């Protein structure tokens, strides 16, 4: 049997002789492997971002918006009519078995003042359930209680962005701030959460008891009115039943007849995000597949060069055969040569792919993740390309007639 290390040496030497040609042939593989790795990195990065956003939003989340009104035949958009009440929120929590918790939201924008600093931010009136629904822990201090909600105390929780803007490095817990000129005690700080799926800063917010918001900040003519509700289902499987149960319950509570439209809308955000995640995964696969095509083209380049090489070295093949090279000795020699081309190209391509991914991260600001699996995949694939496209030229070389090959000029 043939001596593999010497064959590798022979292959290296043959490739070194035609440096330019070898480099150009490898370029096909380099671009192919680089493209596969970059595309997978971009795709994986996008999926990861979406997954992070899903978890930052809170899992198994439903949002109930007040419904559209129809005023004189003109249909208004969703949320134009205030139809949801605290009573609805309590009823959903009480009567829908698939719902684990409900957080009402009455929100508005308000100017917030602490000492000489002031800041405009979104103020959300809610209940302690909010932190459960949104999986949002506190960084310091304590949450407000159901008792706070009942007695409409003037306490608040600050998001990290608000803390940064009003307090800087100071500890805000225990300090007084004024929201719309109403004094509030800061009792806790929310843990930083980052951007939402829509690119909103989720930390630029203040939580206050919903009753306090109703009475002191965003008073409306309807007592107990809230803007939206956030509902947490017991599990991912419970999302659909929860949606159905809420629909039934609210239709009943709002006295909506069988032929009338809902005056509220239930949105399954988790589902929307999961769909987005799914489509990103499909996109990643698609990008990877397209990039693989260029790897295939690179492989054809290798085959082309190997065929030329076999023709050029016919005489060498004849000499080797005359002094005792067997069929597989010749085949292995050329396969190893093709493999050497494709593997060196593969390694260079991996480096190129990683650098390109880094560059895309730096320039476009996209999250890119080069997974070890994609490196392994690309490397293995380039090796397979080498063997696959090296085989035919090698096979052709091994079938040469030694006499003809020796006479070849």
């Amino acid at each position, binding site marked *: *049997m*043939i*001596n593999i290390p*010497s064959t590798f040496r022979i292959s290296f*030497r043959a490739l070194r*002789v035609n440096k330019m040609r070898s480099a150009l042939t490898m370029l096909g593989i380099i671009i192919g492997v680089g493209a596969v790795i970059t595309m997978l990195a971009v795709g994986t990065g996008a999926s990861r971002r979406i997954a992070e956003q899903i978890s930052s939003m809170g899992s198994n989340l439903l949002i109930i918006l007040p419904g559209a009104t129809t005023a004189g035949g003109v249909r208004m958009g969703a949320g134009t009519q205030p139809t949801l009440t605290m009573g609805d929120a309590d009823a959903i929590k009480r009567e829908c078995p698939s719902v684990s918790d409900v957080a009402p939201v009455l929100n508005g924008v308000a100017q917030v003042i602490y000492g000489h600093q002031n800041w405009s931010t979104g103020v959300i009136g809610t209940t302690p359930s909010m932190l459960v629904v949104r999986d949002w822990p506190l960084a310091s201090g304590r949450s407000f209680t159901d008792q706070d909600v009942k007695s409409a105390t003037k306490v608040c929780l600050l998001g990290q962005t608000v803390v940064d803007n009003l307090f800087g490095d100071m500890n805000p817990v225990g300090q007084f701030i004024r929201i719309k000129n109403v004094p509030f005690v800061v009792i806790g700080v929310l843990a930083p959460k980052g951007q939402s799926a829509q690119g909103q800063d989720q930390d630029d917010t203040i939580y206050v008891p919903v009753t306090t918001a109703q009475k002191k900040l965003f008073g409306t003519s309807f007592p107990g009115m809230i803007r939206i509700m956030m509902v947490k289902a017991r599990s991912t499987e419970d999302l659909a039943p929860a949606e159905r149960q809420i629909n039934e319950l609210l239709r009943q509570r709002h006295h909506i007849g069988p032929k009338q439209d809902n005056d509220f809308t239930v949105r399954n955000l988790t589902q929307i995000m999961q769909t987005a995640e799914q489509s990103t995964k499909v996109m990643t696969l698609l990008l990877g597949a397209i990039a693989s095509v260029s790897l295939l083209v690179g492989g054809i380049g290798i085959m082309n060069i190997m065929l030329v090489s076999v023709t050029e070295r016919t*005489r*060498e093949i*004849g*000499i*080797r*055969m*005359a*002094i*005792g*090279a*067997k*069929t597989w*000795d010749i085949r292995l020699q050329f396969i190893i040569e093709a493999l050497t081309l494709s593997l060196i190209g593969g390694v260079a391509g991996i480096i190129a792919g990683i650098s390109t991914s880094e560059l895309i991260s730096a320039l476009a600001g996209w999250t890119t993740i080069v997974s070890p699996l994609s490196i392994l995949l690309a490397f293995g694939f380039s090796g397979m390309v080498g063997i696959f496209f090296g085989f035919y030229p090698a096979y052709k070389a091994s079938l040469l007639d*030694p*006499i003809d090959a*020796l006479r070849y000029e």
Partner: protein
Amino acid sequence: MAIVEAKDISKIYRLGDIDLKALRGVSLTIEKGEFVAVMGPSGSGKSTFMNILGCLDKPTSGRYLLENVDIGDLERDELATIRNKKIGFVFQGFNLLPRTSAVENVELPMLYDGVPAKERRDKSLEALKDVGLEGRGDHHPNQLSGGQQQRVAIARALVNNAPIILADEPTGNLDTKTSAEIMEIFVRLNTQSNITIILVTHENDIAAYSRRIIKFLDGRIISDEKVVKS
């Protein structure tokens, strides 16, 4: 002991509809240790005959026994093994691998015989020394003269201890003085190591180094006589 036995060998090439009879019934026995010169004009069939002797080709009919093994029964890879172990080739155009050092060229037959690297290197250097190229192992063919290249080729033919050397016009590309030096090596290998040498040549003074001259014409042997050394 007969090392080569050819029995009524014929070789027919089909060129389209025409059958070209390159050999028309050649029978020949060569004993171990003989030094044979094969002569004849081009187209006489001597090259075809040499290809068959060298196991590069098979006869269309007739039998060829090499050390009592019938070559006609062997597969392609078995023929390669026979060429590797039994036959050393020396060509007119040297046929060394370009861009490959002398010692690596000599190692080649052992590479296909699975000889370990250290032993390969030692035997190659030994063979190079044997043909008078000590210290030239690192030279590439294009750094060597024609005579030196042919010595490398002879070393390559020797290195696997093949009992037969087939030399196809080994001095065809060399000047008279170098030719004489190369022929001296053949004579020495023949007399000292008892290697059977079969040599194709056009030139009478090269054939004169041998001890038996076989002449081909039109695919047949027309004369086969011992050389009378004066």
